[in-house]
C-alpha cells in the first residue's frame, strides 16, 4: 500500500500543460457500402465557438456496452471545405449506438466523445 501511495504521489507531481476544451458537431451519413459512413466534423472552441482549423484529428469509435470488444481502429480526418471542418470515413462492425472518440492534437489538445446512433437502413 505504501509503494502504491508513492507511485500515486509521483503521478501527482506530473507537470501541467495547456489543454483547451473543444466542442464538435458531428454528422455521419451512410455511403453505398454497408456500415461505411462519411462523417463531417465541425471543430470549435467551447467558450468562444471559434472554429479550430489546422488540427490533427483522428476518429475512433467504441460500442459503450462492449468496451474493447467492438471498436473501430482510429482513422485520420482530412481537412474539410470550411474553417474548422474535417472529414473522415469510418467503417463500423455493426449497427447500434457508438461513442465516437475525436482525438485532437495540434494548436490545442483535447479528446471529444460524441454518441451517435447508427441505424440499419430500411
Amino acid at each position, binding site marked *: 500500500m505504501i509503494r502504491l501511495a508513492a507511485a500515486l504521489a509521483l503521478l501527482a507531481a506530473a507537470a501541467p500543460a495547456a489543454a483547451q476544451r473543444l466542442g464538435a458537431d458531428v454528422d455521419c451519413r451512410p455511403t453505398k457500402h454497408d456500415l461505411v459512413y462519411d462523417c463531417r466534423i465541425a471543430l470549435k472552441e*467551447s467558450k468562444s465557438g471559434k472554429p479550430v482549423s489546422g488540427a490533427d484529428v483522428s476518429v475512433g469509435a467504441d460500442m459503450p456496452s462492449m468496451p474493447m470488444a467492438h471498436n473501430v481502429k482510429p482513422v485520420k480526418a482530412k481537412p474539410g471545405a470550411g474553417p474548422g471542418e474535417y472529414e473522415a470515413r469510418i467503417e463500423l462492425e455493426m449497427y447500434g449506438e457508438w461513442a465516437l472518440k475525436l482525438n485532437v492534437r495540434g494548436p490545442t*489538445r483535447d479528446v471529444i466523445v460524441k454518441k451517435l446512433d447508427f441505424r440499419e437502413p430500411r
Partner: protein
Amino acid sequence: MDEYALGVLTNMGLFSFLALSAYLLLIAGEMSFGQQAFFGVGAYAAGIGTAMWGLPLPVAALFAMALGAGAAWLVGLPTLRLRGLYFAMATLAAAEMFRILFELFHWQREVDGEPVGPDGTQGFRGIRWVLEQGIEQAGYAAIVFGILALVLATLFLAERSRLGATVRMVGEDPELAAVLGVNVARVKLGVATAAGALAALGGALYAHHNTYVEPRNFDIMLGVHSLAYGLIGGLGTALGPLLGVALDIGLLESTRVFQGYRMIVFGGLIAVLLIVRPRGLLDETTVNRIAAAFRGRGA
C-alpha cells in the same frame, strides 16, 4: 509503437486490475459476476474527484479505492452468506443495481463555463486530468503498468505469506479451514473488500484514459470478461489473469478479419480452451511444475 497499439496495450493494463479483482475472489472459492460494479464505482468516484472537485488523480484514485472497498464490503456482507451459483447470481444482481444507479445519477457543476459530471444515461464526459497534465499515451501506459507492477508485487508477497495460504485453503476447503480455526466468513469478506478496492483503482485509471464513462460500460459483458480472464489464464498464480487479459484482447484484435462476428469466433475459442484446461492455462499443477523445475535448476 503507434498510438492505437499503445491504446490497446493500456487497455490490457487497465482490465488487468479487474481481472485480478475477480481472481482474488476465485481463489477464495467464489465466482463473482459483479466486479464491474466496483470498476464503475471507481471510475465515477475518481472522475468526480478530478473533474468536479479539482483533486489530483492520485488523491482521487485513493478516494475511489476507499469507495470501491466500502461498496464491495456492503455487497459482500449479505451475498457471501450464499454459495456457488446463488452467490454468482446475487453479485450479478448487485452489479445491475449499481449500473441502474449510475443511470439515475445526475450531478453536474459548471467548470470553465461547461456542465461537468455524471449525467445519467448520457454518461460522464470531460474527465480531463490526464490531458490537462500534458501526459501523453506512452506516459499514461507507463503509469498504468507501473501501478500494476506494484499491485502484482503486493499480491505475490501476500500469496507467499500465511494470509495467502489461508485464502487458498478457504477457497479449496472452507469446512476444513473452519475446523482449523479460520474465520471463513471474515476471510471471504476481507478478500471481497480488497477485490473491490482493486477493481475501483482500475476503474479510476480507466476513466482517465478514456476521458468518458457511461453506465453501459459497466454491464454484464464486462463482468463475464473479468471472470473469463482468470479462468482462461489460470488460477495458479496472479500472472494467470494477466495472461487471460492478453489472450482475450489479443484474440479480439487478431480476429478483426471476422468483423462483427469475431465475438462468436472468440467465444468458441474460449469454450474449447475451457474444455481442455478447466482451471486455465496457468493452473495450480502447471505453476507447481514450473516452480519445481526452477528449484531443480537452482539446486
